[in-house]
């Protein structure tokens, strides 16, 4: 079971985040100030840290992050912020953050992103062939086969499938898809992403015999990891 630390100054928000993460199966500790967060992070080993960008007192989120990294604590850090400007995001990631989520956010979005961060920690490096169930993707030749049958994909569909396959068995939100596959940081146009996924579904499985991509109600999608 993963242990997570949530550093958030608003007690109610912290409690809600902690409850949502606990429901998701994580063990959660909370800290209200940057100082307390640093002490806890140094005293125990956490698998990931959820860090508020704006913290009271002299030490804000980026300060905590810099101190953590300087102390050699390299647990993945997800930054929460009310500031959505692109340069804020860039600054957060440059300071050593691994992901950035703008408030207000959906708890499903938060847990999905944390799953990805935690998985990334343990993922084997650099394969040239991705496999999920009957699906096989050759990264070198950029070809996809489903149950031995070649599937012809547009470049964007290929990237969409690659992202889903890299996170097979995990919930992937529409926002994550939009950010990773289209590479723009804006409010995602929800319906359209669904339509792209539907098209991809039809191409992978024209007769509906083996539905690979499952819709997770209210959250996003999940590619079945095994046949």
């Amino acid at each position: 079971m993963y242990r997570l630390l949530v550093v958030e100054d608003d007690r109610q928000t912290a409690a809600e985040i902690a409850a949502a993460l606990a429901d998701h199966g994580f063990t959660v500790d909370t800290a209200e100030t940057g100082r307390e967060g640093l002490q806890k992070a140094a005293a125990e080993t956490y698998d990931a840290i959820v860090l508020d960008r704006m913290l009271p007192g002299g030490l804000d989120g980026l300060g905590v992050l810099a101190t953590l990294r300087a102390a050699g604590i390299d647990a993945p850090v997800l930054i929460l912020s009310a500031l959505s400007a692109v340069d804020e995001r860039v600054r957060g990631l440059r300071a050593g953050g691994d992901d950035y989520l703008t408030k207000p956010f959906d708890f499903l979005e938060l847990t999905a992103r944390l799953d990805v961060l935690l998985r990334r920690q343990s993922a084997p490096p650099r394969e040239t062939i991705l496999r999920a169930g009957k699906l096989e993707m050759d990264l070198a030749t950029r070809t996809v086969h489903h149950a031995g049958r070649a599937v012809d994909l547009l470049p964007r569909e290929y990237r969409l499938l690659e992202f889903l396959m890299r996170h097979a068995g995990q919930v992937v939100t529409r926002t994550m898809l939009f950010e990773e596959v289209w590479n723009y940081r804006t409010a995602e146009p929800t319906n359209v992403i669904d339509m792209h996924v539907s098209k991809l579904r039809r191409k992978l499985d024209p007769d509906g015999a083996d539905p690979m991509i499952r819709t997770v109600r209210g959250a996003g999608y999940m590619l079945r990891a095994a046949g």
Partner: protein
Amino acid sequence: MRLVDLPRTTSFQLALRFLLLFGAASIALCGFLYWQTTYYIEAGIDDWLSHEQAVLAVVQSSTLVKRLEAHVVADPTLERPLTLFTADGTRLAGTHLAMTAAELTAVPMDSPFRFVFHQGAHPFVFRGLAHRRPDGDVLLVARDMEPSHKFVEVLTHAFIIGGLATTFLGLTGAAVVGFDAMRRLDGVTRSIQRIVGGDLSERLPTHGRADDLDRLVLVINGMLGALERLMQEVKGVCDNVAHDLRTPLTRLLAGLERTRRHTATAEDYAAAIDDAILETRDVLKTFAAILRISEVESGARRAGFTDTDLCEVVADAAELFEPMAEAKGVRLLLASSDSPALMRGDPSLLFEAVGNLIENALKFTPQGGCVTVLGFARAGTVGFEVVDTGPGIQADERDAVLRRFYRGETSRHTEGSGLGLALVAAVARLHGMELTIRDALPGCRITLVRHDGADSGIGKQPPADPANSNDIAMKPAAE
């Protein structure tokens, strides 16, 4: 306005300073004039004295005595005294000067000098020139200075009276100017107090003189106008937010209450909760959209500007919306241009703007219609355009649709927050782009264009209406 405030006004102090400066200059000028005048008069007299001495020097002593006696008879006044006296100060002939022998023997030879003697109470000032003749006698030629002193006196009086008149006029002028400024500033102050008191429609008074104060007042009035407009916009937005959020919140509440009254099974509860979650998400989404528009309008995103190719952004957006067009039975065409359309900007915001326009166009274009998008750069302009074959936007609605929460008659019953075009307008303003809505006959053409493509470095083609040019190859968005 009080009299004691007058010396503190800027105009009065300025006038006073000028008066002091002018006074100092006048005094210096008068002094110079005085000095030059007296010098000139003295030099004239000295010339006359030397000339007289020279004439009399060649006259024989006996003849001289006779001439002096004749001079005394002819000119008994002391205006031009001529006196011959011996070395010990005894007068031989000529004018009687009330001077002692000691005084006479002390006079300097052959150089003009000034001397005074009293006859009664009246002092006589003379300028004289003495010359020792070969026989040892001394001839003194002199001239009364009274007439020239009179002239200098009149001159000095004129100076003083002129100075006093100037001072009086200057002070009066300064007071008038000061009072005028005080009166105008008091007017401005009263207006500002009314504005601070809450009357935002109040404007500062002008005097139609187009002077510096009027110019300042005009600028401030312009600022007040902008502030008033913004305040009204903020108020309008608040009203709209309240109105637009009341609807989903009412629906949410009604749903929850209905669930409370009627629901029996756990599945019903779960379904009701899911509905509530979706409803709440929509409300949050509306909030997020409002916040985004505010963020864009604050200009904070300008920090994230990079070199962006509008053609690429437009192509990406067209590709993203292709499935939606397909589902609606509308053709989505990407008009490709040969050169990139580079400008400084936030690619994500520009993408969102293009996306909003495409989504809107798809929403209103009937089945079998067509939506065309293109990014272009030519002749110092760079921009993008979305053209549809829908019902178009009425001319009188074209400004209104860009306002937050505005819903046109045709769109009142369609889905949407009424914030899409407001965000497009905010993105356009952030990038210094001009947003125009025109008729495409049939349909609507929305163009965002940035003039002065100086920093994009592109735009060698002649200007042309982008959508009507024939050099653009049309192709479906997702080939």
